[in-house]
């Protein structure tokens, strides 16, 4: 007996892993019926973190481009869909598409400029921060979308959920985000095993070698950025409609960008389930810390633990928690 499950279906997923995933999806699907509104609202936070983490993971974990200004796309998606709804009564499902297109355009521009001018590594990261911050200050002065006073979406008090206009209960948003998260998971999995995924990984490992091998590095880098940006903007639209208020200083902030990247890094960069695991771990830790700080009344305790956890992961388990957990649970891909 080899002691390891075989990948008989050829999907690169062991039966054990498939079962685990199925259980996870089932639990998440029925959760709203068993948990309080409070826990549900926390789960929504988890799913937002997981989804954004996956979008970012595509760019960083798979294609190897360190973007520290992803809040830019969250903001673009949020504002685009929100403004179109507030000013023109456009349903968010259409506004989302506009946001995604806008983000993809901006992302492609940044990627193209960086490639053209050979801005890589930490310089690229700084470039992304600069773009995000510049846009933030720009929106701070953009009167038409409310500038620093923010954009408010009118809230309708309906007895039922309005899916068309995304006005409704926490549970409705929960399910939307769950679908998004699982969709992102599926998409990442799909792309990883296609040519584009392999090219991205090649670029991540050694860009020059990839170029030498004839891979059109420019095209694939821009594609990675555009896709990641569009996915992020999609989530951004949901941020706008869930919170019903948008401020440039919150949605475009560097802090938001940093929050987006910590879940996938803690969970496991480049892995499929890592961002989701990271989101769960970080959010529950955050909630626990909030309660603790409340009892002890110490300001900063939550951030301190946050930093300590980050440090611990970087020092002890830089590949993230998921690879470790995956091995422990025996969900690894086939080994002979």
């Amino acid at each position, binding site marked *: 007996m080899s002691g390891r499950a075989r990948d008989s279906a050829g999907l690169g997923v062991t039966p054990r892993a498939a079962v685990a995933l199925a259980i996870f999806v089932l639990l998440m699907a029925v959760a709203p019926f068993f*948990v309080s*509104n409070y826990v549900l609202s926390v789960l929504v936070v988890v799913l937002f973190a997981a989804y954004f983490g996956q979008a970012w993971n595509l760019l960083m974990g798979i294609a190897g481009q360190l973007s520290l200004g992803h809040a830019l796309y969250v903001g673009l998606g949020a504002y685009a869909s929100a403004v179109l709804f507030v000013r023109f009564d456009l349903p968010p499902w259409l506004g989302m598409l506009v946001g995604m297109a806008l983000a993809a355009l901006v992302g492609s521009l940044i990627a193209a400029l960086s490639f053209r001018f050979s801005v890589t590594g930490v310089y690229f990261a700084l470039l992304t921060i600069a773009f995000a911050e510049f846009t933030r200050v720009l929106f701070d002065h953009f009167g038409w979308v409310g500038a620093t006073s923010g954009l*408010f979406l009118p*809230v309708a008090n309906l007895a039922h959920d309005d899916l068309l206009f995304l006005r409704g209960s926490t549970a409705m948003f929960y399910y939307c985000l769950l679908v998004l998260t699982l969709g992102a998971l599926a998409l990442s999995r799909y792309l990883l095993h296609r040519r584009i995924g392999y090219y991205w990984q090649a670029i991540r490992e050694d860009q020059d070698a990839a170029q030498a091998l004839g891979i059109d590095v420019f095209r694939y880098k821009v594609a990675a950025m555009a896709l990641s940006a569009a996915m992020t903007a999609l989530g951004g639209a949901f941020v706008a409609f869930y919170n*019903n*208020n948008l401020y440039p200083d919150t949605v475009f902030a560097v802090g938001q960008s940093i929050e987006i990247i910590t879940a996938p890094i803690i969970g496991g960069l480049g892995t499929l389930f890592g961002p989701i695991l990271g989101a769960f771990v970080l959010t529950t830790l955050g909630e626990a810390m909030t309660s603790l700080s409340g009892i002890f009344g110490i300001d900063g305790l939550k951030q301190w633990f946050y930093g300590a956890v980050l440090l611990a992961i970087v020092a002890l388990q830089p590949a993230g928690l998921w690879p470790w957990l995956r091995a422990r649970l025996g969900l690894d891909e086939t080994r002979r």
Partner: protein
Amino acid sequence: MKHRLNRRDFGLGAAAAGAAIVSAAGFGRARAAMPPVKLGILLPRSGFLALIGQQCQRGCDLALAMLRDSGYALELMNGDTESKPDVARTQAEKLIRDGAHILIGAFESGATAAVAQVAEQNGIPFVINIGSDPAITEQGYKFTFRNFPTSVMIGRNGLARYEDIFKATGTTPKTAVIMHVNDTFGQSMMRGINALAPKMNLPFKIVDTIAYDPQARDLSVEVAKAKAAGADLHMPITRLNDAILMIREMVKQRYEPMGIISPGSPGMYERQFLKVLGKYAEYCTANVPWLDPKQELTKELEKAFYKAYPEESFDLNIGYSFEGVLIAADAYKRAGSTKPQALVEALKATNITKRVMIGGAIRFDEKGQNPNQYSAVVQNRNGKPTVVLPKENAELAPVFPMPGWGHRA
């Protein structure tokens, strides 16, 4: 609703129970026969607004003690919004889950908007102690009640006081320059002022408006611009730290207008401002809603405040937070039940004349907004923010123009 327990919930449950026990114990004074109403207080206890959040908390704590002594039955449950709207949302949900009957908060407009939504969705009444964004009472919410003026009201009432100052002191400036912080509050105030100023026939002309970044590290450029405008009157719209920076720069650059009078923003009446700037803080004036020194309740509150917190400043954050709790406790007393609908009806019928802030009785219009708002002229005198107008509530007479920087004692 069935709830899946886990270790975290046990921890949180224990914490909530512990907090409840602690707050209930040691208060064996005369109490009404009714069980206490649970008030969920949502404030920025951490994050960059923590200082103000703590001030508001002091107001709430004093209200708890004083109202209990007067026979009201109440209990406080504290939640931290971390100065962030999404955290405000989850914490509001948490307090409701833990049994809060009325929510009170949340100081910062984004957090307040988030809590108002949660309150509306859960059908729990929400009393806004401080939060000036006009949009919040324009959403058609049935469960939100705001005692605080909107930024438009603050602007209008603040602008109205200028004439009173000039009449009382016999001097009128001809020109003015506005320097405002470019954040939610500042922009909101400016919009109000731009709309109202032409209609109000102000005796002075606004020659320049200078906006600055709320995170500005130094305001030398902005103050230089203001000085270059050469106006008689300086009208700042600030928060605390930038107010300190601004005045310091004005002294350094020897920019001495006839007066520094804010149309209604925080900063210049706060303890930190007075402490840091010392003699240069004198005569800085703000037209803001303020505590009524002539009300009995205010005198009682002030005494209790300085006894418990001798080093802190007794300002409007204390007053409005106190009133927030007062409104909730009063509504419960009249409703006689913790059922949300009963509380909402009682809140709608609120009519409190014995209050701590200057203004008419506390009541709410059909949008949930208290329309009886009034701004007093509060001038820093002898190291303390002092009401100088209106005369009925004043402790000292207003001084305008102010003595130059070099002529300070």
